[in-house]
């Protein structure tokens, strides 16, 4: 037996693509399951409770609506940024990302305000199941949104560094998908607590 060259035809394998995108989507799936659990807990307790939300709880319609509007706006801007970069206009893409980061920061601040208003702290003596679940929803939304803003800023840096091109914008696509998840998660919470209670 002789030894012969091994590589034929196909040569070196192509650089795998889309791994980051699919990885982010898989992680997003996890995040959806997390919010699903919180909403399921909300529904479980609410279904069996006599009054839901419990007496004494007022639902802050104004802040809730503002949060939903901000979230939807940020989803639009991030998709706009991706579209612009994809079509060779990184300047517009940067503007879109900047706006997204701004909306995201506003979203987090509104969540903070909402959370601080429910009087949830060691000082309040009676903390019911409603407050625990609602606060858990706010904490989760805030956590994923803060991560999202960080990711948007990171990808913004790479847009400034001229690294997001129409042919190579995988990270931007991944971040935009992640941000869409943040928005969808909030809309799910919004519809559970504000719309269908």
């Amino acid at each position, binding site marked *: 037996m002789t030894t012969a060259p091994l590589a034929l035809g196909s*040569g070196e394998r192509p650089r795998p693509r889309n791994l980051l995108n699919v990885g982010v989507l898989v992680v997003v799936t996890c995040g959806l399951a997390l919010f699903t659990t919180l909403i399921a807990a909300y529904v479980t307790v609410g279904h069996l409770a006599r009054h839901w939300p419990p007496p004494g709880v007022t639902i802050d319609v104004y802040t809730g609506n503002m949060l939903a509007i901000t979230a939807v706006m940020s989803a639009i801007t991030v998709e706009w940024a991706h579209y612009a970069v994809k079509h060779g206009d990184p300047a517009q893409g940067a503007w879109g990302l900047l706006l997204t980061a701004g909306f995201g920061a506003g979203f987090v601040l509104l969540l903070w305000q909402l959370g601080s208003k429910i009087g949830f702290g060691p000082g309040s003596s009676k903390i019911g199941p409603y407050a625990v679940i609602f606060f858990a929803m706010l904490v989760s939304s805030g956590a994923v949104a803060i991560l999202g803003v960080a990711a948007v800023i990171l990808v913004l840096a790479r847009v400034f560094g001229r690294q997001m091109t129409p042919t190579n914008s995988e990270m931007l696509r991944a971040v935009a998908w992640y941000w869409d998840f943040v928005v969808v998660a909030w809309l799910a919470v919004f519809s559970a607590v504000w719309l269908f209670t």
Partner: protein
Amino acid sequence: MINTAAKIELGLAAAALIMAIGVAVAFDDPGGFVLLFGVCIAMALCGLALAGSGFTDRAPRYPAGAEPPIQMVSAGRAGTPKASPWPLAGALALGLVGLGVAVGHALVIVGVICGILAAAGWLSQAWQEDPTFTASERSRISERLLSPVGLPLMALSLIAIIVISVSRVLLALPRTGSIVVAFVLAVGVLIAFFALSTRPNLARRSLVFLSGFAVVAIVSAGSVSAANGYRTFEHHETGPGPITVVAHNISFSRKTITVVAGQDTTITFDNLDPIYHNVAVYSSSGQPFWAGEPIKGHRKINYLHSFNMAPGTYTFRCDFHPTSMVGTFVVQAAPGSGAP
């Protein structure tokens, strides 16, 4: 394009949907329905992601009996992942945040700062590994960004970190202890730089590791000290002397607290239980007048408050244990005010 992976995920989603409907029909259980339905949605999304991923099964079909010999596919080494210290740094930051959530608030802030640094490091490595990153790009960035903005910023933040952390340690220790620590620190710095100057050939990597370790050690010491509170400095006393209340085993050490109306009063509250307690003053009908900040043991807090209330008898209690931790709160008239 619907590939096999997508088909499987969508099938799983269908199974979860059937289970969700089954739960909704069989039991009166909307919570279970929401859970399984959400899982179904998530799986369907995963399936769509895989369908759009372009991950196809690359397998040529050969006519039966005429398969060509099996080829060897050269794997190549280009795709081998490069080492990166940032996952470790990021995990460390996340661990600090988690620890801070469990133990005290100071560590959360330290963890967040470390997280920002780790994210920046991770980004810069990804940046440099991008095929578009060339030597000219590197010099452009370092000229425009790193030298004018980054270096001063880093130096400033390093100074701030060291000053804040070391001062927290010195504030927390007793007087003699803080002198000893300051001395040891100074000698340590001297020895470290002496060692560095005598061994200029020390590997860059170990240098980075050592200094990173030193910063982390200083920050941890500082945050632990900040969480433990500061040593008490001399404090001028007003009113009828300092009042000490100790909470232990869900009861107060004293049954009566006496204060003078309108005078600045310090109540030193020492919590020896691992749970939250506080001191709060109510009228006998339950109307709240004042509530001290709740603390978790073992911690001490000085409540400074001026009780501008009508002289008389009130009750004080812990807001968390209103039945087992109660006592009498007496407000005396200020001398010379003419009240009875």
